[in-house]
Every structure is written in C-alpha cells, then in structure tokens.
C-alpha cells in the first residue's frame, strides 16, 4: 500500500510538472530571465503548489502520525548555516545554466533528449558526493 501511495504521488507530481510547464527548460529560463522575454508562469506553479501543500500540511499537523507510517519524517536541522547557503547558491548556478532542477530532470528521462542522458547521471553523482561529504566526520566538525 505504501509503495502504491509513493508511486501515485510520483505520478501526480510528474503530471503536475508536465502540465505546469516546469518540465520545459525554455520556460524555466524565460522565468529566470527578468531582462529578456520574461515568462511569469512559474510563479503560478509555485503559488499553486505552495497553497495546496500548505493546506495539506495543516491537515496532517492534526494527526498524531501519518496514515501509513509510524511517525512524520521532518527535517531535523533548523540551522541557517554555511552548508545551506553554499548549497543553495551552487544549486541555483546549475539551475540557471540549463533550466533543469531535479524533478523536471527526472520527468524527462523517457523523453529522449541527449542533454537529459548526461544531466541525470551527473546530478546523481553530485548528490552522492554532497551526501558523502555531509556524513563524513571531518566536515561535521568544521561546520
């Protein structure tokens, strides 16, 4: 059941990305291009997504635990630290270079663009390196 929920949530998320235009990097770059042919559509994606998510999270905050799990798995960190800021800055640079972030990249895997075949494996390597760095004791001490 829990796998079915995850599969369905992934499908919904993916269809949402396709319908919204987020899966088209040209649209993403035009949103980010304030000085060019600015396309404000993605502000509507974010607005719609945040409004519905916020409503659902309000509902879930009334529950002692999720329906199919024994507890809520919420981010533990509350620190606004160097890792958060450096990571976000680097992420933004990569996003601005080609207009792809992780969700739209994944939803494009079966669409056959050569750039996706390069982008997705590189993204997985990046995630693996950063996760490994964050878990190693040396970086924990420095942070």
């Amino acid at each position, binding site marked *: 059941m829990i796998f079915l929920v995850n599969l369905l949530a992934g*499908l919904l*998320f993916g269809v949402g990305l396709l319908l*919204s235009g987020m899966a088209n990097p040209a649209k993403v770059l035009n949103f980010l291009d304030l000085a060019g042919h600015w396309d404000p559509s993605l502000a509507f*994606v974010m607005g719609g997504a945040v409004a*519905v*998510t916020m409503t659902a999270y309000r509902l879930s905050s009334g529950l002692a635990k999720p329906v199919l799990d024994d507890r809520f798995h919420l981010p533990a960190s509350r620190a606004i630290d160097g890792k958060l800021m450096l990571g976000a800055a680097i*992420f*933004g640079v990569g996003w*601005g270079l080609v207009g792809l972030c992780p969700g739209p990249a994944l939803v494009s895997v079966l669409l056959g663009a050569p750039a996706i075949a390069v982008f997705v494996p590189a993204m997985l390597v990046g995630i693996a390196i950063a996760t490994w760095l964050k878990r190693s004791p040396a970086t924990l001490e420095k942070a």
Partner: protein
Amino acid sequence: MPIETEFTPVASAVGGALIGLAAGLLMLMNGRIAGISGILGRLIMPTVDSKPAQALAFVVGIIAAPLLWTAVLDRSVAQTLTDNLPLAAIAGLLVGFGAAYGGGCTSGHGVCGLARLSPRSVVATAIFMTTAILVVFVSRHLIGGGP
C-alpha cells in the same frame, strides 16, 4: 538564441496544485517531504531510516508520468533543451551537489519548505533564485549565446 514561451497562468497554477496534491499525499500517508533531491538521496545513498524502496516507487512514478500524459492527452511533451552536452554535465553536477549539500531543491525548499514556513527554506529559496537569475542574466545578456 532564447525562444519565447507563452504565458500560461492557468495550466501552470493547476499543474502547481497537482504538485501540491502529491506533496500533501506523501505527507499525510507517508509522513515524508516531497523533495526530489532528498528522495533521490534516500534511494542512492540509503540509511537505516531512508526506506529506499519507497523512494524508488516515487521515482518510478515521476519517470512514468509522460507515459500517462501521452496516453490520456494523446500529445507529446513540449520541451526545448540545450544541446550543449558538456554544459549539461556541469549543470547536473552543480544541481545535484548543491541541492544535497543545501538540504533541498526547488521542491524540497521551494514548495514543501515554504509551505511549512521553514526559515531555512525561505533563505535557501531566496539564494537559489538569486544565483539562478544572475547566471541567466550573465549567460544571455553579458556573454550571449546561452540556452
């Protein structure tokens, strides 16, 4: 040269609402944040609590979405993307590294985090929006020839 795209407020807001429904479903049922970089991290760098099989089911769902889209709507997905493969590789590495190092991407910080009113996510979203806008400005208006 950059191509113009059509302003699509209704489709974009409805698409966003579907993304929100998915995020809400995942929290209500599974107690998890619908952050794509986080879900990929749970899958490829598993820990005791990361439940990689659940993460895989979500990833399969996202990847399969275009099949459902084409089957139901009988039209292909419009996508215009760079053909500069070295640039795509560098961008992929930066996106993956930055999202995992900063604890989230457009979905984890930009949607789920903002919906939780998380101060970390507000800061992260402001920073990645700013650097992305700067990179697009530099590549399109200062250097030129950007995608």
